[in-house]
Structures are given as C-alpha cells and as structure tokens.
C-alpha cells in the first residue's frame, strides 16, 4: 500500500525521525493558514500525489510570501500533474503539503528495503541525493553504501555510524544521522513497511539531519495487524476499477489492451496475458479470480472487465485443480445469463472435470467459442476481434 508524503512524514514524526514542520491543505485558504503556522517566512508548496518526480513536473515550488502560497496552492490544487511515474495521463492534485523552508547544506539519500537475494533488510545511503536512486545504482553503484540488517539483532549503531561516516558527515552531523537512521529503522519495523525512502535526506547549515521528502510503502500482507494504516489509503490515487475489484476480493489490474481475461492463479494469469500478446492481441487486464472460481466470482469478474470500454473480447482460462471445471462452467453460464456480456467470449477449461464442463457449455444456448488448449484459446480470442 502506498501513502502520501505528508502521511509518511506524520508517521516518521511519531517515531522521532526529524522532518520539517508542515501541514496538509485541501484549499488555498487552508494553505495560507498552514503557512502562517510555520517557523519560517519561506514556505514550500508540494503537490501530494502517489508518484515521484513531482519537482520536475512543477509540483514542488517555493513561496516567499503568504500571497505566493495562495497563488501556488490555487495553481496546484486541481491541476493535472504529469511526472515520469504517472504516465502521460498524469494525476489530478487534490491536496498540497505546506512546509517550512530549510537551509540546505547537503542532499543525501537514505533508504530501507528488502534485499530479496539475501532475504534481509538493507539500509542504503548515498551522497547522490535528490536524483533517482535506480539511476545511481545503474551508473555509479559504488556510490551506494549498504548495511544488511540481521533480523534477530536489528540495525546496530555501528552500522549507522559506518553509513554516516561513509557519507562524509562529521561532528554533530554524525550523531544526528545515526539517530535518524535508528529511528527510521524502528518506524519501518513497527509499521511493517516494504519500502522507506528519504530522498533527499538533507543536512542543514546548522548540522541538523532531516527528511526533506519521504516515501513509505507498506506490506499488504501485514495490514491486518495495522488497522490504523488502512485509514491512510487514498482511493482517489487508485484506478477506480481496481478499487471496485478489491471490494469483490478480486485481484485485478487494468492494462491498455482490448482482450479482457479471467484466469485462476496469478502465474497463469500473467502467462495468459503473454500468450494473447504473442497471438497478436493486447491484454486489457490482469485478473486472478483465485482458487474459488464460482458463480459469484465469475459474475463479478465479468462486471469489472466489461466496465472497461476498450474490451472487445474476453478470454476465460481456468485450470481446474481443486476448483472443478464443471462448477466454473456453471458459473460462467449463470453469470452470462444474468448480465449482458456484449462481447465475444472464448473459454478454455482444463483439468478436473474439463470434459463435463465442455459438454455443459456445448449444451447451453449461449454463444461461446470453446478452446481446447492455451495456444488455441489465445488464437481464438484474437480471431474473434476481427469479426
């Protein structure tokens, strides 16, 4: 799960990670009121969307007066912000963070992430703050310092010191950075984060170390033990069809193509998308209906897929293991009878009771194209598009 910068900073505050003072504002008036509370006359107005690269897209600006705060907030709230992470369609800005100005001496990078190859958390630091860390990793990997964290011990102070000295910090900056890192690690663990990125981490002219930006993602599998985090979810930032699918407990991701697909299992769902592409079509979505492909899930699956106006055909690919194909066929027949499926349907059922299922589909008076194999299914799905 992703959250906004202002929410991430609120969590960091709770764990004593130093962040600039700031307040979220939904209107220009609120923005001005927020700016009045700041300890500095300079304020930074930051668009709050779930995407990076906001600065380059014009979503982060400096205001030298309350009038400028109002002007910038007026400009930003409601504007469509396009960054390299939003895609060309951009995202509408609905709120801004009004933050104190900071006297920046150095811009650094600090991140905590799971290193899958080692199955351990790694804290990464770099002198190359304010730029994309992926770029640094690709071009100058030696500029990224890493400390792997033993899960039984947690982050140790000496590891934080190594990173701090490695960043070229000195004097009281070192202690401040160590405190920052330890606190960030505590926040990460306490909230079951999957990623915490402070980019840039700034050192001020006074020697303070603070998070100028903050990005925190959470592990979806751990949300059950953090009900407070669920309140931070911003549905405006998500694809509406995906939000609706999640209500039905369907795993759906919208794509740009025109062949809708309904599959059981994530791996097979991806493979089905792949083979549609190989057959000359474009998948319209990823949809894993999971282990229990019954009437209800199939019907909800159809509803979601059909709400995408680009969908011109639907391919159903179910490999029956525990789920029996005859039940899936029954589900498809009932679903199609109860909702208007106005695009051609190609069905491929394999595995448990596949023959009975084929017979049921055959006997029904509904229009299906039945496919016998994965390749055949993709071929037929692309063919029906041409008719």
């Amino acid at each position, binding site marked *: 799960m992703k959250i906004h910068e202002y929410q991430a900073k609120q969590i960091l505050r709770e764990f004593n990670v130093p962040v600039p003072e700031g307040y979220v504002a939904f209107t220009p008036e609120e923005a001005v009121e927020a700016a009045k509370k700041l300890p500095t006359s300079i304020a930074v107005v930051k668009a709050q969307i779930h995407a990076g690269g906001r600065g380059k897209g014009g979503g982060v600006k400096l205001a030298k007066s309350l009038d400028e705060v109002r002007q910038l907030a007026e400009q930003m709230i409601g504007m469509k912000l396009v960054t390299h*992470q939003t895609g060309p369609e951009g995202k509408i800005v609905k709120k801004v963070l009004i933050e104190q100005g900071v006297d920046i001496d150095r811009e650094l990078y600090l991140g905590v992430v*799971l290193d*899958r*190859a080692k*199955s*351990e*958390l790694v804290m990464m630091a770099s002198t190359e703050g304010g730029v994309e*860390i*992926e770029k640094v*990793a*690709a071009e100058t990997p030696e500029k990224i310092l890493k400390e792997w964290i*033993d*899960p*039984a011990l947690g982050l140790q102070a000496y590891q934080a010191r190594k990173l701090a000295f490695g960043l070229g910090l000195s004097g009281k900056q070192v202690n401040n950075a160590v405190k920052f890192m330890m606190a960030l690690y505590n926040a990460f*663990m306490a909230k*079951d984060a*999957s990623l915490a990125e402070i980019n840039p981490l700034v050192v001020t002219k006074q020697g303070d170390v603070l998070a100028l930006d903050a990005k925190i993602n959470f*592990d*979806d*599998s*751990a949300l*059950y*033990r953090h009900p407070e985090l669920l309140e931070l979810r911003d549905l405006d930032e998500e694809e509406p069809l995906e939000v609706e699918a999640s209500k039905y407990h369907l*795993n759906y*991701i919208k*794509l740009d193509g025109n062949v809708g697909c309904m*599959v*059981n*299992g*994530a*791996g*097979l*769902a*991806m*493979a*089905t*998308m*792949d*083979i*549609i*592409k*190989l057959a000359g079509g474009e*998948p319209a979505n*990823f949809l*894993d209906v999971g282990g229990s492909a019954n009437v209800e899930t199939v019907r909800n699956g159809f509803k979601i897929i059909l709400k995408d106006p680009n969908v011109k055909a639907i391919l159903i690919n179910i*490999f*029956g*293991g*525990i789920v029996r194909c005859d039940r899936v066929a029954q589900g498809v027949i009932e679903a199609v009878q109860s909702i208007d499926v106005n695009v051609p349907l190609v069905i491929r059922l*394999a*595995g*448990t009771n596949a023959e009975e299922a084929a017979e049921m589909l055959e006997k029904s008076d509904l229009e299906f194209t039945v496919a016998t*194999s*994965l*390749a055949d299914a*993709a071929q037929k799905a692309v063919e029906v598009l041409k008719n």
Partner: protein
Amino acid sequence: MSILLTEKTRILVQGITGSEGSFHARQMMEYNTKAPVVAGVTPGKGGQMFDDKVPVFNTVEQAVKETGANASVIFVPPPFAADAILEAADAGLELVVCITEGIPALDMVKVYNAIKDRDMHLIGPNCPGVISPGIGKMGIMPAFIHKPGTVGVISRSGTLTYEAVHQLTERGIGQSTGIGIGGDPVIGTRFIDALKLFKDDPNTEAVVMIGEIGGTAEEEAAAWIKENFDKPVVSFIAGQTAPPGRRMGHAGAIISGGHGTAAEKMKTLAEAGIHVCKSPADIGATVAQVLGK
C-alpha cells in the same frame, strides 16, 4: 526416484482440523501410496482422531515423537504461519512445506534467517507444495494430471505449473518431482537449492523451470546452471506483458526500479544455455524436443 518427498517421507499436517487443512489432508491420504500422512497438529485438539485414521496432537514435537513423522505440510492462517514453520524446524523436521499465502514479509525474513543454517528444506510459503508422482504429494496440486517419470519441475507459480505438467503428461512425459517454490519475496527453497537436488537425482533427466517477473532468483539460477548443471533445462518466464511497478497477484511478482523484467530474465537464461520458451503453450513441446521424444 525423486527428491525431497520420497518413500521415506512420513507426513504430518499442521492445521489438519481447519477447512483447508482437512480438505487437503484427505486428498493426500487418498493419493499418497508410499508417503503416508501419519499425524496432524492443531493446538488444543490433541487426542482427537482425524477421520478415524490420523491422530491429532497439540504440538509438532509430540507428533514427531509418537509417530516418527519427518516432514510437515502447513495449512495455518497467515498470522500464525511463521510460528508454525519455526515449530516444525524446532522439532527437527527435514522437509517443511508451507502452503499459506499472505504471511507478512518481515515475519518471513525472521524465519528465513532462523532456519537458513539448519539441515532442513522449507518449501514456500505461498506455494502449491511438492509432488513426487506415484509416491505422494504434500500440497494442493491436482495429483491426477501428474505421471511418474524423469522430468523435474520447479516453479514460482501454482496453476501455471499445472498447465506445464499437463502439457508434459499429455505427451507421455512423466515427472520425477514437482516443486512449487512459491510466489513470495522471501521463500525457503530457491531455484538453485532445488536444482542442486535434481542434479544429484539419477532419475531426473531434465528440468522445467518456471519463473516470473520480480527479484533476481532466475538470474542467479542461470549463473549456477551455466557452471554446475549439465542436464537440459527448459524455462518459461511469466509476465512479459506486465507493467512496471505493479504487483501481479503474487507478492513477489513486481518489476521495481526497472529490474526484474521478463525480458531481462529470458535473456540471461538463454545466455546460460537454457531453452527459453516465449510462449507458455510451448513448454511441453520443448521438453519433448530436448529429450528427443
């Protein structure tokens, strides 16, 4: 012959009285002719008999002591699964298969590091399990699509693995052992660990390796195969059309920071001499070709 799950395996089921656990325990009791289900564990339900056949114990330790179980398959809900794995490890089991999907990643980081130096194999979590056709299964895969034979199967997926196995069996090609290693970012047995076992199995002639986007496990396997493995490997990587930054169902299936793409993995695998299928429909045919069948 097979790996991991053999004629010496005696299975206990953690979570045997739950709805998932009881359903699949029955399936295993029916299919497993040579690797019997000997015990179940559900805390608080010790002393009961499951289906009048399998004794239920309160702890894994007790179950092992009373029945000689040496392997466990876990069907407990995500909040308790990490604890169940550690309990199985502590009881000295050699093989632990965790089916549970949705275990918090930080729980698995702790578990992985606690067991990594032990003499045990953890399969999963978030996986279909292990099957040695003709001997038995520990997991949720449909046994009937399998057939005893000489092709090893290793996969991060569930139903896609069934698809691949189905293609093999349709061509009369049987399997030595099929292992679903799981779709999570932190798993016990990885491709390389499974390949090492297949390397030493005289009955395995070739291996099918099914990967997907996310992480670098396939690349690491490719490097290892190039140096150490001389049996033919056929591979498919799911997610060639997956967009970056989106989790495709499995917690571990995500292209992040431009890495973990299918194209990158396919290239690395091909360079290591692995037969890479572009289409998931070609897995069976490619294995047949490689084996000269």
